[in-house]
């Protein structure tokens, strides 16, 4: 009797045990929609895809919810004015009322560290990636050079946003990241240290023989593009000799010339790459930036900017500004391309910037003839019936070149950083503001050093906030 009972007790226990053992295996599930870390980068093709992911992070517009360089450099400076249809978009930034709270003014902090993390992860494994053929080896070397170049670019972009205005090698820069580290809590490096790192990465990239001189593929780095960034860094640190040399390299390596007339107009619809040294490919998102999808205009070009142009003879006026619907003053520098209306690639380095950079470096080093020559070259390409100018004094030349940068590079992510770099104030026209409270930002005001995001200062005990935020 007892035996039978025991048997019957065992039935449930055995069944129980069978289920336990069979379930262990069934608990091992792996994702279908994502890639496991062990499979991410195993071939040269993979790291090339990884590299393209790094390029993808360098979005200067981020148009869907604009907070990239093209947007902030215009509304922070004197390029734009708030229009009647603005419902609050970008107003904190425009009025210099931003704080450490996350917004368009400091969104790039995260973006460029994401870019650095992506490229550092590949740099960490790249030596172990098998490359069977000489072609693969060359491709791998080129990818590595591009990654190093991009590391310099990312640090540069971070630096110009979060450093104070002017140039002081001992001022607070940004944290240098040379490896991917999920536990990192780095302190900020000094401006000089960051610049040294950028220079070292850029020159390492330029030394790679497999990297082409000319931008044969304009969405990827070339020696010309690296030289362009070297020129920018030199201008930032006011090393004008180096700036002249790098800008010259960029111009010469690129093989590009200044575009004129129809070619220049067509250039803005991505119809040609006549001036492109490097660009960001955008095939999907309309660059509304200063506008809304429903046609509302949030920011117009400022009167100050428009007044700089000779409206009749300067091709740029009608190319950059126009009327849309009921709005008579709209930025149309991104009118659209074959990808669709308002969908344009973002120009990262154009040949005209390099001319103006070299002109500025010449002017600053008192080589006024050469400065005038570069400036005249740009103006002659843009203005019909242009007569060359010459300069008698350094300041006159520098001011003229700054004004030309204002005009030529407007809405391309330069104006705020140019004023900041030179330690100049922002002075808006009275007609461009509703209140004098946000008309002028004095030179070297603390707002020039954008605040680190609150997230960063809370999460990283070593992150030092910029003063007054």
């Amino acid at each position, binding site marked *: 009797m007892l035996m039978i009972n025991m048997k019957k007790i065992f039935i449930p226990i055995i069944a129980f045990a069978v289920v336990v053992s069979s379930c262990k295996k069934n608990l091992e599930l792996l994702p279908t929609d994502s890639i496991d870390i062990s499979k991410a980068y195993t071939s040269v093709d993979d790291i090339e895809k990884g590299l393209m992911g790094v390029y993808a992070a360098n979005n200067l517009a981020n148009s869907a919810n604009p907070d990239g360089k093209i947007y902030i450099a215009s509304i922070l400076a004197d390029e734009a004015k708030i229009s009647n249809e603005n419902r609050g978009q970008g107003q904190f930034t425009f009025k210099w009322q931003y704080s450490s709270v996350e917004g368009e003014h400091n969104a790039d902090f995260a973006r460029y560290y994401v870019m650095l993390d992506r490229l550092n992860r590949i740099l960490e494994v790249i030596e172990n990636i098998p490359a069977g053929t000489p072609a693969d080896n060359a491709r791998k070397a080129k990818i590595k050079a591009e990654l190093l170049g991009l590391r310099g670019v990312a640090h540069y972009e971070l630096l110009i946003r979060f450093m104070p205005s002017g140039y002081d090698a001992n001022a607070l820069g940004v944290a240098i990241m040379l490896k991917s580290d*999920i536990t990192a809590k780095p302190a900020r490096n000094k401006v000089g240290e960051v610049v040294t790192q950028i220079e070292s990465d850029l020159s390492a990239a330029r030394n790679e023989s497999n990297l082409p001189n000319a931008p044969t593929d304009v969405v990827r780095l070339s020696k010309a593009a690296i030289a362009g960034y070297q020129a920018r860094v030199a201008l930032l640190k006011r090393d004008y000799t180096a700036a002249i040399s790098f800008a010259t390299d960029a111009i010469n390596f690129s093989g590009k010339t200044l575009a004129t007339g129809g070619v220049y107009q067509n250039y803005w619809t991505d119809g040609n790459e006549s001036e492109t040294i490097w660009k960001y490919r955008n095939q999907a998102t309309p660059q509304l930036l200063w506008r809304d999808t429903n046609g509302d205009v949030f920011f117009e070009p400022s009167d100050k900017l428009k007044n700089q142009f000779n409206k009749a003879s300067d091709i740029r006026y009608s190319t950059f500004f126009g009327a849309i619907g009921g709005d008579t003053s709209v930025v149309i520098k991104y009118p659209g391309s074959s990808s669709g209306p308002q969908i344009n690639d973002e120009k990262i380095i154009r040949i005209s910037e390099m001319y103006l950079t070299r002109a500025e470096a010449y002017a600053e080093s008192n080589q006024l003839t050469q400065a005038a020559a570069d400036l005249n070259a740009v103006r002659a390409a843009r203005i019909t019936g242009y007569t060359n100018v010459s300069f008698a004094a350094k300041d006159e030349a520098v001011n003229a070149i700054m004004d030309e940068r204002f005009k030529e590079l407007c809405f391309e992510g330069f104006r705020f950083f140019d004023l900041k770099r030179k330690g100049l104030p922002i002075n808006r026209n009275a007609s461009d503001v509703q209140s004098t409270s946000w008309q002028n930002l004095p030179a070297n005001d603390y707002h020039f050093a954008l605040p680190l995001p609150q997230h*960063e200062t809370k999460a990283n005990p070593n992150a030092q906030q910029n003063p007054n935020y």
Partner: protein
Amino acid sequence: MRRLFFFVLGMLIFSAQLLAQSRNVSGTVLDVNGQPVPNVSVRVVGTQSGTTTDTRGVFNLSAPLSAKSLQISSVGFVSQTVAIPAQGTVSVTLLADNSTLSTVVVTGYQRIKRSEYSGSATKITSDKVNFVPSASFDQILQGKAPGLLVTSGSGQPGTSARVQIRGASSINGGNAPLYVIDGMPVEQGVFQSINPDDFESVDVLRDAVATAQYGNRGSNGVIIATTKKGKAGKTAVTYNGQFGVTQPGQENFDMMNSAELLQFQEMLGKALPTINLPGWAYSRNNPANAGLPAATLAQYDRTLDSLRSINTNWKDVFQRTGSFQSHDLNLSGGSDATRYFLSGGYYSEDGIGERSDLKRYTVRANVDSKTDKLTFSFNSSAGYTRRNFIESENSITLANAFAATYLALPYQQLYNADGSYATGSGRVGPNAYARFFQTSSLSDQLKLLGSMSANYDITKNISLGGFAGIDYRTTTTERSVYPNTYASNAAGFPTGPGNGSTTGQGSYGNGNTSFLQSIVRINGGYHKVFAEKHDVDVQLISEYTREKQQAFNYTGYGIDVKRLNTPAAITPGTKDNLLIPVIGGSKTGRALYAGMALVRYTFAGKYTFNGSIRRDASSQLPEENRWQNFYAGGVTWAVLKENFANAWSKVSDLRVRLSYGTSANADGFPFGNFGYLPLYGGGTYNSGSTIIPSNAGNLNLKWEKIATLNLGVDFGFFKNRIVGSIDIYNKRGYDNLVDQQIPFETGFSDNNINAATVQNRGVELQLTTDVVKTDDFTWTVGGNVAYNKNKIVSLGQVKEFPQGTEIVRVGLPIGAHYAVKWAGVDAATGAPLYYTKDGKVTNVYSDDDAVAEFGTYNAPWIGGFNTSLKFKGFQLDGLFTFQEGFSRYNNQDFFQLNSAFALQGFNLRKEMLTIWQKAGDVTNIQSPLYQRQFSSKDVQDASFLRFRNLTLSYNFQKGLLNSTKVLNGARIFVQAQNLYTWTKWTGFDPEDDNNIAAYEYPTPRIYTLGLNVNFK
């Protein structure tokens, strides 16, 4: 030898005669409606002899002559003891047991007698769940069980509520309870396709013993719905129907009318002369108009006059009185061995927002079968729901009808002279309204629930059983934007104009998500009473759960205007027309395993021990931390079974419960099914694909655990005229998941870690009293109230981190508002003033001055009370619910009390007319020259008391119905849902499922007239 033989024989005969000293007792058991009640247990008091009633409610048993009374008991009815009459039959009428102390607790795997249960649980009976005009049953539970927080986030018919039992335990993980229907765990928050009229009861399990069987999923409490089962006997047919209307509720603020708004625009113009708003542009006070000719000024005056005379009531435009109806037809019947319950239901509710509605069709079949050794149960339901939505529900956009209602300008008209919608830039009202007719937004949902369980008694003491169930849901959303309309033109390329040169070509898209959960469970049971005192019950359970989810969506462009709302109208995309459809989708899944032993030991009916040990695993955690043990134990003491309590005649029930145990929440992992892994994803750039890191991952993640200590007392006094229970608890969640903010230099912004300890301590009281109880008249008052103190005890390595407009800080509750403290408006300058961190007044707004002094959005005090008056056939029921001591960020205030939005062409609230204009003005509305910042001014007390339901019903008397020959019972009722809300909150609805008011769809008021009929 012969003598001995005859002696023995004589003894035997004597014995036989002794045995014959018993008699037959028979009788009938009926319910209050005169319906026979089958399967009622009838036991002769003082003996082991007993029987059950048959389908006609008739019983027949043999009782010793010495026996004096019978104990009549059945699940769902109040037990009775009746005297055995000297002659004749017994007729017993059982009263339905709707008290809080129902005799059986459904714990999902078992039904346990409440007297032998040490867990903390509340039963909500069918009369409180059925026929409430709400399509999502979680919303119905508000105020009906202690410690159960139900807050609705949307009045869109069918939307689920946020439900929390005993406070939030996890900072970053889920805090929703587990929902179980007829033993089958079901998907959280998707109840629109389930008919609550099919529910017999809802049990709310709160403490560790109660939820132990759900160990890895039960830490946030368990809500168990049990659907109606068939009753043996002739097929009973029931019809329940309701008709009614839905209406917008009250709102505690006033927007400006046209005259006021124009006057306000003039005030703004004085401060900001360059603005271009009609109230200023046409004003004689505008210096720009000073030199204009008199005729022009007169024309301006006329323009202002005509604008003033337009007063469009946008609330009437966007909100409406909708219709409501529901119908159920139920069939119930069967034999002793097999019973069935069949039901079909139709439910239709119009939302108070234009276009929004819900229509639901449900069917159910429940079959229960019992033979000598085998019990078998089959439950199934299918529900199909179609919902139409307003545009951009619950978002701060101009397309959201509930935002547009208040932002639209009163001096604008809806239609042009030619009858078309007066859409255009800045025309908020017409733009939002036109969208209703230029777009579609709807969802179709199919939900199938089916489960089967069987239990076989191998011997008298040992049983083996199994359970298998499926919960399947598929939802397909449809989104259309019609071509060449305002809505498509505004949508952007390729559906819109982009540069204004082409008209929007329209779009059509579907999104499909499916959810499948399947469970297999086997259980072995052992039950034996040793020496008549030691009642032992052991269950061994092994359970495997597999969940799979899939999503697929597409949107196509270039819609043929003649064929709207169908994928057939999509233009195939080419490189040239750029109408490339967008396609997306995903697949994921998880698996759970649980093995457990559940033990109950009752000693002499006085002391019961409930215990459980489990071993759990989830595929959602790293392999090393995947398996986790949980345990729980509790004791119950039935005090009245003690001899010393014999004299306590006024005490009719008294039990003390003490329990402690651990559990976890596998349904609350905030990082999805594979979030613990460092992962890479694919993107596209420059027409090629990319490989980029997509998830930081954390291979040290482990289970969140919650330990609960509970002490409870159940009591009844004066023959249960007063019944209730009180519970105190300490619930401590540890290893709780925190979305740790990490430096951006890592390439990520946050990562999940097990770092926090969160404590919930509270007390819950539930009480029901029959204040007056006579044959004709009963007045019952009942209610529950719970206080929960939530506190973050530890966050690991950090002390705090901000999260939106909240801060997560040690010592504060979860959801603490974090804002700079408002100090008023400077009368001299009109500048807004704030308090710095050290309490000084400043006119400089700095985020660093934010403080956490403004409470939390999780109400610490919650409850409900009901009152019921019964007079003969009439019954009047009222239900009030309240949530007290919480505050929410009123983002609507930020919009409506903000002159910047008037500059952008929106309407504001009347209070804005007190805006600061000149030195010396004492006001709370700052000058338009200063930026309006988010501050404590916008954090408001949202406490509310809501008159949730009022029902007046009449039960037709038996005699009256008998004359109809077809009706067995009938009841008519009228009810009002969400009748009135008392609150200081100035938004339209203080109740919401989150911390911020952002033009959510408000809760409607619903009036219905209903009928319940039982056919013969």
